[in-house]
Protein backbone atom coordinates (compact mmCIF):
# COMPACT_ATOMS: atom_id res chain seq x y z
CA UNK A 1 0.00 0.00 0.00
CA UNK A 2 1.45 3.37 -0.99
CA UNK A 3 2.22 5.97 1.62
CA UNK A 4 0.26 9.14 1.07
CA UNK A 5 1.81 12.52 1.59
CA UNK A 6 -0.29 14.46 4.10
CA UNK A 7 -2.34 17.22 2.52
CA UNK A 8 -1.74 20.54 4.32
CA UNK A 9 -4.83 21.78 6.10
CA UNK A 10 -6.58 24.64 4.34
CA UNK A 11 -4.51 24.27 1.19
CA UNK A 12 -6.68 22.62 -1.45
CA UNK A 13 -4.73 20.76 -4.07
CA UNK A 14 -7.08 21.00 -7.03
CA UNK A 15 -5.00 18.89 -9.38
CA UNK A 16 -4.28 16.06 -6.94
CA UNK A 17 -6.33 12.96 -7.62
CA UNK A 18 -8.69 12.10 -4.78
CA UNK A 19 -10.04 8.91 -6.30
CA UNK A 20 -8.21 6.81 -8.84
CA UNK A 21 -9.95 4.10 -10.81
CA UNK A 22 -7.21 2.19 -12.54
CA UNK A 23 -7.99 -0.37 -15.26
CA UNK A 24 -10.97 -1.74 -13.39
CA UNK A 25 -12.83 -4.78 -14.68
CA UNK A 26 -15.90 -5.69 -12.70
CA UNK A 27 -17.66 -9.03 -12.86
CA UNK A 28 -20.44 -10.52 -10.87
CA UNK A 29 -21.80 -14.01 -10.97
CA UNK A 30 -25.29 -15.37 -10.77
CA UNK A 31 -25.80 -19.10 -10.25
CA UNK A 32 -25.23 -19.94 -13.91
CA UNK A 33 -23.43 -17.06 -15.64
CA UNK A 34 -20.69 -14.55 -15.05
CA UNK A 35 -21.62 -11.04 -16.08
CA UNK A 36 -18.88 -8.61 -17.00
CA UNK A 37 -20.15 -5.15 -16.06
CA UNK A 38 -17.13 -3.02 -16.96
CA UNK A 39 -13.89 -3.70 -18.81
CA UNK A 40 -10.66 -1.88 -17.93
CA UNK A 41 -12.18 1.43 -16.98
CA UNK A 42 -9.80 4.16 -15.82
CA UNK A 43 -10.44 7.68 -14.61
CA UNK A 44 -9.53 10.07 -11.85
CA UNK A 45 -11.73 12.22 -9.67
CA UNK A 46 -10.23 15.39 -8.21
CA UNK A 47 -11.26 17.22 -5.09
CA UNK A 48 -14.31 19.39 -5.70
CA UNK A 49 -15.28 17.59 -8.92
CA UNK A 50 -18.85 16.95 -9.89
CA UNK A 51 -17.97 13.78 -11.71
CA UNK A 52 -20.71 12.15 -13.75
CA UNK A 53 -20.81 8.53 -14.87
CA UNK A 54 -23.10 8.59 -17.88
CA UNK A 55 -24.26 5.78 -20.06
CA UNK A 56 -27.21 3.69 -21.20
CA UNK A 57 -28.41 0.77 -19.12
CA UNK A 58 -25.95 -2.11 -19.20
CA UNK A 59 -22.87 0.10 -19.22
CA UNK A 60 -21.99 -0.88 -15.65
CA UNK A 61 -22.11 2.64 -14.26
CA UNK A 62 -24.04 1.66 -11.12
CA UNK A 63 -21.79 -1.37 -10.61
CA UNK A 64 -18.79 0.91 -10.93
CA UNK A 65 -20.23 3.25 -8.30
CA UNK A 66 -20.87 0.29 -6.00
CA UNK A 67 -17.26 -0.80 -6.45
CA UNK A 68 -16.13 2.70 -5.45
CA UNK A 69 -18.51 2.34 -2.50
CA UNK A 70 -16.62 -0.82 -1.56
CA UNK A 71 -19.48 -3.26 -2.06
CA UNK A 72 -17.75 -5.12 -4.86
CA UNK A 73 -14.09 -5.91 -5.50
CA UNK A 74 -12.63 -5.50 -9.01
CA UNK A 75 -11.51 -8.68 -10.73
CA UNK A 76 -8.80 -6.65 -12.41
CA UNK A 77 -7.33 -3.23 -11.58
CA UNK A 78 -7.58 -1.12 -8.47
CA UNK A 79 -9.69 1.64 -6.99
CA UNK A 80 -7.77 3.96 -4.68
CA UNK A 81 -8.95 6.74 -2.41
CA UNK A 82 -6.10 8.99 -1.19
CA UNK A 83 -3.82 6.31 -2.62
CA UNK A 84 -5.31 3.60 -0.39
CA UNK A 85 -6.98 0.65 -2.07
CA UNK A 86 -10.71 0.51 -1.33
CA UNK A 87 -11.68 -2.78 0.26
CA UNK A 88 -15.02 -2.32 1.98
CA UNK A 89 -17.83 0.21 2.48
CA UNK A 90 -16.99 3.08 4.78
CA UNK A 91 -18.62 6.40 5.62
CA UNK A 92 -15.73 8.28 4.03
CA UNK A 93 -17.68 7.45 0.88
CA UNK A 94 -21.33 8.15 1.68
CA UNK A 95 -23.87 6.73 -0.76
CA UNK A 96 -27.15 8.26 -1.86
CA UNK A 97 -29.33 5.65 -3.54
CA UNK A 98 -32.13 5.87 -6.05
CA UNK A 99 -34.61 4.00 -3.84
CA UNK A 100 -36.84 5.96 -1.47
CA UNK A 101 -36.48 3.23 1.18
CA UNK A 102 -32.85 4.16 1.86
CA UNK A 103 -33.87 6.07 5.00
CA UNK A 104 -34.23 4.01 8.16
CA UNK A 105 -38.00 4.03 8.71
CA UNK A 106 -37.66 3.70 12.49
CA UNK A 107 -35.78 6.97 12.79
CA UNK A 108 -36.97 10.52 12.31
CA UNK A 109 -35.38 12.80 9.73
CA UNK A 110 -33.06 14.23 12.37
CA UNK A 111 -32.15 10.81 13.77
CA UNK A 112 -31.50 9.50 10.26
CA UNK A 113 -29.04 12.29 9.55
CA UNK A 114 -27.39 11.92 12.98
CA UNK A 115 -27.16 8.13 13.00
CA UNK A 116 -24.03 7.61 10.87
CA UNK A 117 -22.19 10.31 12.83
CA UNK A 118 -23.10 8.59 16.11
CA UNK A 119 -22.20 5.14 14.81
CA UNK A 120 -18.80 6.40 13.72
CA UNK A 121 -18.39 8.31 17.02
CA UNK A 122 -17.21 11.18 14.91
CA UNK A 123 -18.89 13.72 17.17
CA UNK A 124 -20.53 14.01 20.54
CA UNK A 125 -24.32 13.69 20.45
CA UNK A 126 -24.98 17.41 20.85
CA UNK A 127 -22.49 18.32 18.12
CA UNK A 128 -23.89 15.64 15.84
CA UNK A 129 -27.35 17.06 16.41
CA UNK A 130 -26.26 20.61 15.62
CA UNK A 131 -24.48 19.56 12.47
CA UNK A 132 -27.40 17.35 11.36
CA UNK A 133 -29.81 20.22 11.93
CA UNK A 134 -27.61 22.57 9.90
CA UNK A 135 -27.72 20.23 6.90
CA UNK A 136 -31.44 19.59 7.29
CA UNK A 137 -31.95 23.35 7.15
CA UNK A 138 -29.72 23.46 4.06
CA UNK A 139 -31.96 21.03 2.19
CA UNK A 140 -35.03 22.99 3.33
CA UNK A 141 -36.58 20.42 5.68
CA UNK A 142 -36.35 22.27 8.99
CA UNK A 143 -40.07 21.82 9.70
CA UNK A 144 -39.79 18.08 9.10
CA UNK A 145 -36.82 17.32 11.35
CA UNK A 146 -38.97 15.25 13.70
CA UNK A 147 -41.10 13.59 11.02
CA UNK A 148 -40.77 9.89 10.20
CA UNK A 149 -39.73 9.06 6.62
CA UNK A 150 -43.04 7.44 5.67
CA UNK A 151 -44.78 10.81 6.04
CA UNK A 152 -42.47 12.46 3.48
CA UNK A 153 -42.77 12.71 -0.30
CA UNK A 154 -40.21 11.06 -2.57
CA UNK A 155 -38.37 14.32 -3.20
CA UNK A 156 -38.19 15.08 0.51
CA UNK A 157 -36.80 11.60 1.25
CA UNK A 158 -34.06 12.13 -1.34
CA UNK A 159 -33.26 15.52 0.24
CA UNK A 160 -32.88 13.79 3.63
CA UNK A 161 -30.59 11.20 2.07
CA UNK A 162 -28.48 13.99 0.56
CA UNK A 163 -28.38 15.82 3.90
CA UNK A 164 -27.35 12.57 5.61
CA UNK A 165 -24.55 12.05 3.10
CA UNK A 166 -23.31 15.63 3.27
CA UNK A 167 -23.49 15.85 7.07
CA UNK A 168 -20.87 13.11 7.34
CA UNK A 169 -18.63 15.42 5.29
CA UNK A 170 -17.27 12.42 3.37
CA UNK A 171 -14.27 12.53 1.06
CA UNK A 172 -16.64 11.85 -1.78
CA UNK A 173 -20.41 11.71 -2.04
CA UNK A 174 -21.60 8.87 -4.26
CA UNK A 175 -25.01 9.29 -5.85
CA UNK A 176 -26.67 6.46 -7.75
CA UNK A 177 -29.38 8.01 -9.94
CA UNK A 178 -30.88 9.73 -6.88
CA UNK A 179 -33.46 11.66 -8.90
CA UNK A 180 -34.45 8.93 -11.35
CA UNK A 181 -37.58 7.89 -9.44
CA UNK A 182 -38.84 11.46 -9.03
CA UNK A 183 -41.39 13.23 -11.20
CA UNK A 184 -39.95 15.54 -13.84
CA UNK A 185 -40.79 18.82 -12.04
CA UNK A 186 -39.27 17.69 -8.74
CA UNK A 187 -36.23 16.24 -10.52
CA UNK A 188 -35.50 19.58 -12.19
CA UNK A 189 -35.76 21.41 -8.87
CA UNK A 190 -33.56 18.88 -7.07
CA UNK A 191 -30.85 19.32 -9.71
CA UNK A 192 -30.83 23.06 -9.09
CA UNK A 193 -30.77 22.54 -5.33
CA UNK A 194 -27.87 20.10 -5.58
CA UNK A 195 -25.87 22.64 -7.57
CA UNK A 196 -26.63 25.31 -4.98
CA UNK A 197 -25.49 22.99 -2.18
CA UNK A 198 -22.30 22.32 -4.12
CA UNK A 199 -21.73 26.07 -4.58
CA UNK A 200 -21.87 26.46 -0.81
CA UNK A 201 -19.48 23.67 0.21
CA UNK A 202 -17.59 22.43 -2.88
CA UNK A 203 -17.84 18.79 -1.82
CA UNK A 204 -16.66 16.10 -4.21
CA UNK A 205 -19.49 14.37 -5.98
CA UNK A 206 -19.69 11.26 -8.10
CA UNK A 207 -23.05 10.96 -9.77
CA UNK A 208 -24.47 8.15 -11.88
CA UNK A 209 -27.16 8.93 -14.43
CA UNK A 210 -28.54 7.70 -17.73
CA UNK A 211 -29.91 11.14 -18.61
CA UNK A 212 -27.63 13.12 -20.89
CA UNK A 213 -29.38 16.33 -19.91
CA UNK A 214 -28.93 15.68 -16.21
CA UNK A 215 -25.24 14.94 -16.79
CA UNK A 216 -24.75 18.18 -18.67
CA UNK A 217 -26.62 20.23 -16.05
CA UNK A 218 -24.86 18.77 -13.04
CA UNK A 219 -21.37 17.74 -14.05
CA UNK A 220 -18.13 19.59 -14.48
CA UNK A 221 -16.68 16.34 -15.86
CA UNK A 222 -18.64 13.64 -17.62
CA UNK A 223 -17.38 10.12 -18.20
CA UNK A 224 -19.33 8.59 -21.08
CA UNK A 225 -19.51 4.79 -20.95
CA UNK A 226 -20.54 2.45 -23.75
CA UNK A 227 -22.46 -0.69 -22.85
CA UNK A 228 -21.87 -4.48 -22.82
CA UNK A 229 -19.43 -4.38 -21.12
CA UNK A 230 -18.96 -0.84 -19.88
CA UNK A 231 -15.94 0.85 -21.41
CA UNK A 232 -14.88 4.47 -21.42
CA UNK A 233 -16.13 6.14 -24.60
CA UNK A 234 -15.11 9.70 -23.73
CA UNK A 235 -14.37 12.03 -20.87
CA UNK A 236 -15.90 15.46 -21.39
CA UNK A 237 -15.93 18.72 -19.58
CA UNK A 238 -19.36 19.96 -18.56
CA UNK A 239 -20.85 23.34 -19.30
CA UNK A 240 -21.15 26.35 -17.02
CA UNK A 241 -24.48 27.50 -18.37
CA UNK A 242 -26.78 24.77 -19.59
CA UNK A 243 -29.18 27.14 -21.37
CA UNK A 244 -26.36 28.78 -23.33
CA UNK A 245 -24.12 25.83 -24.23
CA UNK A 246 -26.02 22.72 -23.12
CA UNK A 247 -27.63 21.87 -26.45
CA UNK A 248 -24.50 21.18 -28.50
CA UNK A 249 -22.96 19.11 -25.69
CA UNK A 250 -26.11 17.02 -25.36
CA UNK A 251 -25.99 16.47 -29.11
CA UNK A 252 -22.30 15.54 -28.98
CA UNK A 253 -22.80 13.00 -26.20
CA UNK A 254 -25.73 11.55 -28.04
CA UNK A 255 -23.58 11.06 -31.13
CA UNK A 256 -20.88 9.41 -29.01
CA UNK A 257 -23.31 6.94 -27.53
CA UNK A 258 -25.58 6.35 -30.49
CA UNK A 259 -23.62 7.24 -33.64
CA UNK A 260 -25.69 8.20 -36.64
CA UNK A 261 -29.01 8.67 -34.88
CA UNK A 262 -31.10 11.77 -34.28
CA UNK A 263 -31.34 13.25 -30.78
CA UNK A 264 -34.70 12.87 -29.14
CA UNK A 265 -34.07 15.93 -27.01
CA UNK A 266 -33.05 13.97 -23.94
CA UNK A 267 -35.05 14.02 -20.75
Amino acid at each position, binding site marked *: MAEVAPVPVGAPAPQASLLTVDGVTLQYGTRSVVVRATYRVSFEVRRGDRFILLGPSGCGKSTLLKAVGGYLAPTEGEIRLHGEVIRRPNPDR*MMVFQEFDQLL*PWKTVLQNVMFPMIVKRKLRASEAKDRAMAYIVKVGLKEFANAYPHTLSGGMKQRVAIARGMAMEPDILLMDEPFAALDALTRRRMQEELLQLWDGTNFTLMFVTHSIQEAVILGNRILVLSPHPGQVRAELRGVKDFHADGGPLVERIHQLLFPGTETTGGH
Partner: protein
Amino acid sequence: MSQTVSFDERGDRLVDIPQTNDPSQFVSKPLPLQLRVVDSNVVRKIFVVVLLIIGWQLYGKWTDNDLQFPTFTATVSAFVDSVTRGTLVEQFLNSLRILLMGYAAGVVIATAMTVLAVSTRIGTDILETLNAAFSPLPAIALLPLAMLWFGLGVGSLLFVLIHSVLWPVALNMHGGFRSVSTTLRMVGANYGLRGLPYVARILIPAAFPSILSGLKIGWAFGWRTEIAAELVFGASSGDGGLGWFIFENKNNLEIPAVFAGLLAVIGLGLLVENLVFRAIEIRTVERWGMQR
Protein backbone atom coordinates in the same frame (compact mmCIF):
# COMPACT_ATOMS: atom_id res chain seq x y z
CA MET B 1 -64.30 35.05 -1.58
CA SER B 2 -64.04 35.47 -5.27
CA GLN B 3 -61.10 34.72 -7.47
CA THR B 4 -59.82 37.28 -9.92
CA VAL B 5 -59.42 35.95 -13.41
CA SER B 6 -57.40 37.85 -15.98
CA PHE B 7 -56.18 37.16 -19.48
CA ASP B 8 -52.73 38.24 -20.57
CA GLU B 9 -51.64 39.32 -24.05
CA ARG B 10 -51.14 35.68 -25.14
CA GLY B 11 -54.70 34.89 -24.21
CA ASP B 12 -53.57 32.68 -21.26
CA ARG B 13 -55.97 32.58 -18.34
CA LEU B 14 -54.41 33.59 -14.98
CA VAL B 15 -56.21 33.18 -11.68
CA ASP B 16 -55.37 34.98 -8.42
CA ILE B 17 -56.04 32.67 -5.47
CA PRO B 18 -56.88 34.88 -2.47
CA GLN B 19 -55.80 34.04 1.11
CA THR B 20 -58.90 33.11 3.06
CA ASN B 21 -60.03 32.18 6.57
CA ASP B 22 -63.35 30.82 5.33
CA PRO B 23 -63.93 27.52 7.26
CA SER B 24 -65.63 25.90 4.26
CA GLN B 25 -62.28 26.19 2.45
CA PHE B 26 -60.26 23.62 4.35
CA VAL B 27 -57.25 21.46 3.62
CA SER B 28 -57.81 19.15 6.57
CA LYS B 29 -60.21 19.16 9.51
CA PRO B 30 -61.03 16.73 12.33
CA LEU B 31 -63.78 14.16 11.76
CA PRO B 32 -66.96 14.47 13.87
CA LEU B 33 -66.98 12.49 17.15
CA GLN B 34 -69.61 9.88 16.19
CA LEU B 35 -67.59 8.86 13.11
CA ARG B 36 -64.42 8.53 15.16
CA VAL B 37 -66.23 6.39 17.79
CA VAL B 38 -67.54 3.98 15.13
CA ASP B 39 -64.07 3.87 13.60
CA SER B 40 -62.37 3.09 16.92
CA ASN B 41 -61.01 -0.48 17.05
CA VAL B 42 -61.54 -0.70 20.80
CA VAL B 43 -65.21 0.24 20.54
CA ARG B 44 -65.84 -2.23 17.74
CA LYS B 45 -64.00 -5.06 19.50
CA ILE B 46 -65.88 -4.47 22.75
CA PHE B 47 -69.06 -4.67 20.70
CA VAL B 48 -68.03 -8.12 19.40
CA VAL B 49 -67.20 -9.31 22.94
CA VAL B 50 -70.58 -8.09 24.24
CA LEU B 51 -72.37 -9.99 21.45
CA LEU B 52 -70.46 -13.17 22.37
CA ILE B 53 -71.35 -12.78 26.05
CA ILE B 54 -75.04 -12.28 25.27
CA GLY B 55 -75.00 -15.41 23.06
CA TRP B 56 -73.26 -17.38 25.82
CA GLN B 57 -75.72 -16.25 28.49
CA LEU B 58 -78.77 -17.06 26.34
CA TYR B 59 -77.43 -20.51 25.41
CA GLY B 60 -76.62 -21.26 29.07
CA LYS B 61 -80.11 -20.25 30.15
CA TRP B 62 -81.60 -22.36 27.39
CA THR B 63 -79.67 -25.56 28.25
CA ASP B 64 -80.18 -24.81 31.97
CA ASN B 65 -77.49 -27.30 33.04
CA ASP B 66 -74.55 -25.93 35.03
CA LEU B 67 -72.75 -29.28 34.77
CA GLN B 68 -72.58 -28.98 30.99
CA PHE B 69 -72.66 -25.34 30.07
CA PRO B 70 -72.87 -22.79 32.89
CA THR B 71 -74.18 -19.31 32.07
CA PHE B 72 -71.93 -16.27 31.86
CA THR B 73 -73.22 -14.96 35.18
CA ALA B 74 -72.61 -18.33 36.90
CA THR B 75 -69.08 -18.36 35.47
CA VAL B 76 -68.41 -14.82 36.63
CA SER B 77 -69.63 -15.59 40.14
CA ALA B 78 -67.48 -18.77 40.20
CA PHE B 79 -64.60 -16.61 38.96
CA VAL B 80 -65.07 -14.03 41.70
CA ASP B 81 -65.44 -16.83 44.21
CA SER B 82 -62.23 -18.55 43.07
CA VAL B 83 -60.36 -15.28 43.12
CA THR B 84 -61.50 -14.19 46.56
CA ARG B 85 -61.72 -17.52 48.40
CA GLY B 86 -59.98 -20.05 46.19
CA THR B 87 -56.58 -20.42 44.63
CA LEU B 88 -57.19 -19.02 41.14
CA VAL B 89 -54.88 -16.00 41.49
CA GLU B 90 -52.09 -18.07 43.00
CA GLN B 91 -52.38 -20.79 40.36
CA PHE B 92 -52.60 -18.15 37.64
CA LEU B 93 -49.42 -16.43 38.82
CA ASN B 94 -47.69 -19.83 39.03
CA SER B 95 -48.48 -20.50 35.39
CA LEU B 96 -47.60 -17.00 34.29
CA ARG B 97 -44.22 -17.10 36.01
CA ILE B 98 -43.20 -20.37 34.33
CA LEU B 99 -44.61 -19.18 31.00
CA LEU B 100 -42.58 -15.97 31.16
CA MET B 101 -39.43 -17.92 31.97
CA GLY B 102 -39.97 -20.34 29.11
CA TYR B 103 -40.96 -17.56 26.73
CA ALA B 104 -37.90 -15.47 27.54
CA ALA B 105 -35.59 -18.47 27.15
CA GLY B 106 -37.27 -19.44 23.85
CA VAL B 107 -36.94 -15.92 22.45
CA VAL B 108 -33.28 -15.66 23.47
CA ILE B 109 -32.42 -19.03 21.88
CA ALA B 110 -34.42 -18.15 18.75
CA THR B 111 -32.56 -14.83 18.44
CA ALA B 112 -29.18 -16.51 18.87
CA MET B 113 -29.99 -19.16 16.25
CA THR B 114 -31.34 -16.59 13.81
CA VAL B 115 -28.36 -14.29 14.19
CA LEU B 116 -26.13 -17.29 13.50
CA ALA B 117 -28.31 -18.13 10.51
CA VAL B 118 -27.97 -14.67 8.94
CA SER B 119 -24.24 -14.49 9.53
CA THR B 120 -23.17 -17.90 8.24
CA ARG B 121 -24.41 -20.20 5.53
CA ILE B 122 -24.10 -23.28 7.74
CA GLY B 123 -26.16 -21.43 10.37
CA THR B 124 -28.91 -20.98 7.78
CA ASP B 125 -28.78 -24.68 6.92
CA ILE B 126 -28.95 -25.64 10.59
CA LEU B 127 -31.87 -23.35 11.36
CA GLU B 128 -33.86 -24.33 8.28
CA THR B 129 -33.35 -28.06 8.82
CA LEU B 130 -34.13 -27.97 12.54
CA ASN B 131 -37.15 -25.81 11.92
CA ALA B 132 -38.51 -28.13 9.23
CA ALA B 133 -37.96 -31.12 11.51
CA PHE B 134 -39.20 -29.81 14.84
CA SER B 135 -41.73 -27.11 14.18
CA PRO B 136 -44.52 -29.55 13.14
CA LEU B 137 -43.91 -31.56 16.34
CA PRO B 138 -46.51 -30.64 18.98
CA ALA B 139 -44.83 -29.63 22.22
CA ILE B 140 -47.16 -31.84 24.20
CA ALA B 141 -45.90 -34.90 22.31
CA LEU B 142 -42.48 -34.22 23.80
CA LEU B 143 -43.82 -34.07 27.32
CA PRO B 144 -43.44 -37.80 28.15
CA LEU B 145 -39.80 -37.59 27.05
CA ALA B 146 -39.29 -34.36 28.97
CA MET B 147 -40.70 -35.98 32.11
CA LEU B 148 -38.25 -38.83 31.68
CA TRP B 149 -35.31 -36.43 31.31
CA PHE B 150 -36.22 -33.61 33.67
CA GLY B 151 -38.69 -35.20 36.05
CA LEU B 152 -42.05 -33.82 37.09
CA GLY B 153 -41.62 -30.13 37.56
CA VAL B 154 -40.48 -26.83 36.20
CA GLY B 155 -37.66 -28.37 34.14
CA SER B 156 -40.01 -30.39 31.98
CA LEU B 157 -42.43 -27.48 31.61
CA LEU B 158 -39.63 -25.18 30.50
CA PHE B 159 -38.40 -27.75 27.99
CA VAL B 160 -41.75 -28.05 26.22
CA LEU B 161 -42.36 -24.30 26.51
CA ILE B 162 -39.06 -23.47 24.85
CA HIS B 163 -39.83 -25.97 22.13
CA SER B 164 -43.18 -24.36 21.41
CA VAL B 165 -41.88 -20.76 21.48
CA LEU B 166 -38.53 -21.24 19.74
CA TRP B 167 -39.60 -22.38 16.26
CA PRO B 168 -42.31 -19.87 15.39
CA VAL B 169 -40.20 -16.99 16.74
CA ALA B 170 -37.07 -18.15 14.88
CA LEU B 171 -38.99 -18.78 11.65
CA ASN B 172 -40.57 -15.32 11.63
CA MET B 173 -37.38 -13.59 12.67
CA HIS B 174 -35.36 -15.32 9.97
CA GLY B 175 -38.00 -14.54 7.34
CA GLY B 176 -37.97 -10.93 8.51
CA PHE B 177 -34.19 -10.66 8.29
CA ARG B 178 -34.14 -12.14 4.82
CA SER B 179 -36.74 -9.70 3.53
CA VAL B 180 -34.79 -6.59 4.60
CA SER B 181 -34.22 -4.66 1.38
CA THR B 182 -30.85 -4.61 -0.35
CA THR B 183 -30.84 -0.83 -0.11
CA LEU B 184 -31.15 -0.84 3.69
CA ARG B 185 -28.43 -3.49 3.92
CA MET B 186 -26.13 -1.36 1.78
CA VAL B 187 -26.93 1.71 3.90
CA GLY B 188 -25.98 -0.22 7.04
CA ALA B 189 -22.73 -1.40 5.45
CA ASN B 190 -22.02 2.15 4.28
CA TYR B 191 -22.10 3.30 7.91
CA GLY B 192 -19.34 0.78 8.58
CA LEU B 193 -21.64 -1.50 10.60
CA ARG B 194 -20.72 -5.20 10.61
CA GLY B 195 -21.46 -8.27 12.70
CA LEU B 196 -23.63 -7.92 15.80
CA PRO B 197 -23.94 -4.10 15.70
CA TYR B 198 -25.22 -4.46 12.13
CA VAL B 199 -27.81 -7.03 13.23
CA ALA B 200 -28.87 -4.99 16.26
CA ARG B 201 -29.02 -1.56 14.62
CA ILE B 202 -30.19 -2.38 11.08
CA LEU B 203 -31.61 -5.90 10.68
CA ILE B 204 -33.68 -6.14 13.88
CA PRO B 205 -35.49 -2.81 13.53
CA ALA B 206 -35.91 -3.29 9.77
CA ALA B 207 -37.41 -6.75 10.32
CA PHE B 208 -39.46 -5.67 13.32
CA PRO B 209 -42.92 -6.28 11.83
CA SER B 210 -42.06 -9.96 11.23
CA ILE B 211 -40.28 -10.26 14.56
CA LEU B 212 -43.30 -8.86 16.38
CA SER B 213 -45.68 -11.24 14.67
CA GLY B 214 -43.33 -14.11 15.59
CA LEU B 215 -43.34 -12.95 19.22
CA LYS B 216 -47.15 -12.90 19.19
CA ILE B 217 -47.45 -16.38 17.73
CA GLY B 218 -44.78 -17.62 20.16
CA TRP B 219 -46.72 -16.17 23.08
CA ALA B 220 -49.94 -17.88 22.02
CA PHE B 221 -48.16 -21.21 21.41
CA GLY B 222 -46.43 -20.96 24.76
CA TRP B 223 -49.63 -20.26 26.65
CA ARG B 224 -51.39 -23.22 25.03
CA THR B 225 -48.51 -25.55 25.78
CA GLU B 226 -48.33 -24.34 29.36
CA ILE B 227 -52.00 -25.06 30.06
CA ALA B 228 -51.94 -28.38 28.22
CA ALA B 229 -48.79 -29.56 30.01
CA GLU B 230 -50.25 -28.63 33.38
CA LEU B 231 -53.31 -30.74 32.63
CA VAL B 232 -51.03 -33.76 32.25
CA PHE B 233 -48.88 -32.80 35.22
CA GLY B 234 -51.93 -32.12 37.30
CA ALA B 235 -53.03 -35.67 36.68
CA SER B 236 -49.66 -37.06 37.68
CA SER B 237 -48.26 -34.86 40.43
CA GLY B 238 -50.71 -32.13 41.36
CA ASP B 239 -48.12 -29.42 41.11
CA GLY B 240 -50.01 -26.10 40.77
CA GLY B 241 -50.91 -23.93 37.82
CA LEU B 242 -53.96 -22.81 35.90
CA GLY B 243 -54.18 -26.06 33.92
CA TRP B 244 -54.18 -27.96 37.18
CA PHE B 245 -56.89 -25.62 38.55
CA ILE B 246 -59.07 -26.48 35.54
CA PHE B 247 -58.33 -30.20 35.84
CA GLU B 248 -59.03 -30.30 39.57
CA ASN B 249 -62.32 -28.45 39.31
CA LYS B 250 -63.42 -30.74 36.49
CA ASN B 251 -62.76 -33.73 38.76
CA ASN B 252 -64.87 -32.07 41.45
CA LEU B 253 -67.59 -31.36 38.88
CA GLU B 254 -67.22 -27.63 39.64
CA ILE B 255 -67.94 -26.82 36.01
CA PRO B 256 -68.51 -23.06 36.52
CA ALA B 257 -65.02 -22.95 38.09
CA VAL B 258 -63.65 -24.82 35.04
CA PHE B 259 -65.19 -22.11 32.89
CA ALA B 260 -63.74 -19.49 35.23
CA GLY B 261 -60.29 -20.99 34.66
CA LEU B 262 -60.79 -20.96 30.89
CA LEU B 263 -62.02 -17.37 31.19
CA ALA B 264 -58.79 -16.46 32.94
CA VAL B 265 -56.82 -17.99 30.05
CA ILE B 266 -58.88 -16.08 27.48
CA GLY B 267 -58.75 -12.90 29.56
CA LEU B 268 -54.98 -12.94 29.76
CA GLY B 269 -54.77 -13.64 26.02
CA LEU B 270 -56.97 -10.63 25.22
CA LEU B 271 -55.11 -8.46 27.69
CA VAL B 272 -51.66 -9.28 26.37
CA GLU B 273 -52.77 -8.96 22.74
CA ASN B 274 -54.64 -5.69 23.20
CA LEU B 275 -52.47 -3.99 25.79
CA VAL B 276 -48.92 -5.28 25.60
CA PHE B 277 -48.51 -6.17 21.92
CA ARG B 278 -50.82 -3.41 20.75
CA ALA B 279 -48.85 -0.82 22.74
CA ILE B 280 -45.62 -2.09 21.20
CA GLU B 281 -47.17 -1.93 17.72
CA ILE B 282 -48.38 1.63 18.16
CA ARG B 283 -44.98 2.78 19.39
CA THR B 284 -43.00 0.94 16.74
CA VAL B 285 -44.23 -0.44 13.43
CA GLU B 286 -47.23 1.88 13.18
CA ARG B 287 -45.29 4.98 14.09
CA TRP B 288 -42.65 3.98 11.55
CA GLY B 289 -45.24 3.43 8.83
CA MET B 290 -44.21 -0.21 8.40
CA GLN B 291 -47.66 -1.52 9.20
CA ARG B 292 -51.07 0.06 9.03
